[in-house]
């Protein structure tokens, strides 16, 4: 049983806990379909039987060891062309929440993965609903590896593996995420997106560091220098400054980690 009492106005005030479910994003979608939903409702589970990553990718998580939650939000205030700010807002909130416990080397890997050094510890999956050309509501799915110590994927890690001396639980982490999320989301609502963007860039993995990337099958060295309005990654290299869409660029990772 998971119970949370975040110090928030609306995010996480209505909690739906399920010991096990398909995926919290799917449960969120069902709740929205059934009736008027409560803005800021949070769905938490200890086990997802069909955890979702990006389109067809699975999110693997051992039962009871990690944080799996979804937040349902009304996002009709947001213009479609600004929807990447939802991603920024969520990634910043998750990074800030984790950092607030004292974990080190927490970064946001563009666009919205959470990294410890060169490995992934958290993922975000955002599903919006649009009516015609207007945003309506959004489901923000967040998965964070907390107490899991063994992963099949060599590029995955968890908070406990990075620092086992920090006391943390699913409840504590969920509460912090609700709190930091609400604060960033309020900034987005009040059009203070510059503040969120600044925090995003300050926490961005590889920002202003020379590292290797692959584009069009070619390895090259460059520095991430920012993102544009659409969320495309800005990289500076010998061939100048270029913007990349998600499928156009790959990071090369340090394999000895």
């Amino acid at each position, binding site marked *: 049983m998971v119970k949370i009492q975040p110090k928030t106005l609306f995010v996480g005030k209505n909690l739906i806990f399920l010991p096990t479910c398909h995926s919290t994003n799917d449960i969120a979608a069902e709740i929205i379909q059934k009736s008027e939903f409560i803005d800021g409702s949070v769905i938490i589970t200890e086990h997802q039987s069909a955890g979702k990553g*990006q*389109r067809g990718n699975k999110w693997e998580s051992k039962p009871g060891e990690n944080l799996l939650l979804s937040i349902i939000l009304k996002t009709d205030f947001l213009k479609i062309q600004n*929807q990447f700010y939802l991603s920024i807002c969520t990634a910043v909130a998750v990074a800030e929440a984790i950092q607030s416990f004292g974990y080190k080397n927490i970064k946001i890997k563009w666009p919205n993965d959470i990294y410890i050094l060169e490995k992934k510890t958290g993922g975000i999956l955002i*599903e919006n609903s649009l*009516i*015609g050309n207007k945003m309506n509501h959004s489901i923000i799915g967040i998965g964070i590896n907390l107490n899991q110590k063994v992963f099949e994927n060599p590029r995955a890690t968890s908070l406990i593996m990075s620092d086992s001396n920090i006391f943390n639980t699913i409840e504590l982490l969920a509460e912090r995420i609700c709190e930091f999320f609400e604060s960033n989301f309020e900034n987005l609502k009040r059009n203070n997106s510059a503040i969120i963007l600044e925090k995003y860039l300050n926490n961005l993995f590889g920002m202003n560091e020379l590292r290797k990337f692959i584009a069009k099958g070619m390895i090259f060295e460059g520095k991430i220098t920012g993102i544009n309005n659409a969320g495309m990654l800005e990289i500076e290299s010998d061939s100048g400054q270029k*913007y990349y869409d998600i499928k156009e660029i790959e990071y090369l990772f340090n394999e000895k980690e």
Partner: protein
Amino acid sequence: MDTREIQKLIDFISKSDLNEVNIETSELKLQIKRNGGSPVHYVSAPVQESTSQAVEYIAPSKESQSAPAIVEAPVVASNLIEIKAPMIGTFYRSAGPGKPNFIEVGDEINSGKVICILEAMKLFNEIEAEVSGKIVKILVDDATPVEYDQPLFLIDPS
């Protein structure tokens, strides 16, 4: 070219063997397509009121800006409605690989029905129809990129 002239042109083309005709002048762009065996014609850009609200859009696409503006011609030979992409992204017909398509040609849909997903920058956008009617044509292939305002579906609202 006035409405009567366009109508005459469509009549002429429908009696011919041509499947598709595109005419572009400085004043207008006209596209007429024969759909399957049925004599369905449409004129580009019969914009519905609901989607005609100007959206200020900061797209990094140069192509769409340099493309010639399509002159909005009145609906002539049919009352078909185009559903257009409200954003740039990748068009998906189902919720995921192996999942059934949201809609097929011939389906009767009601407004509020999810018709496709547009994905941009890892944000997945379920698009709900604003109109009710019968799906006449799906204009874009699954998992392909679409531009802002690109027609995605043709719907017969009658």
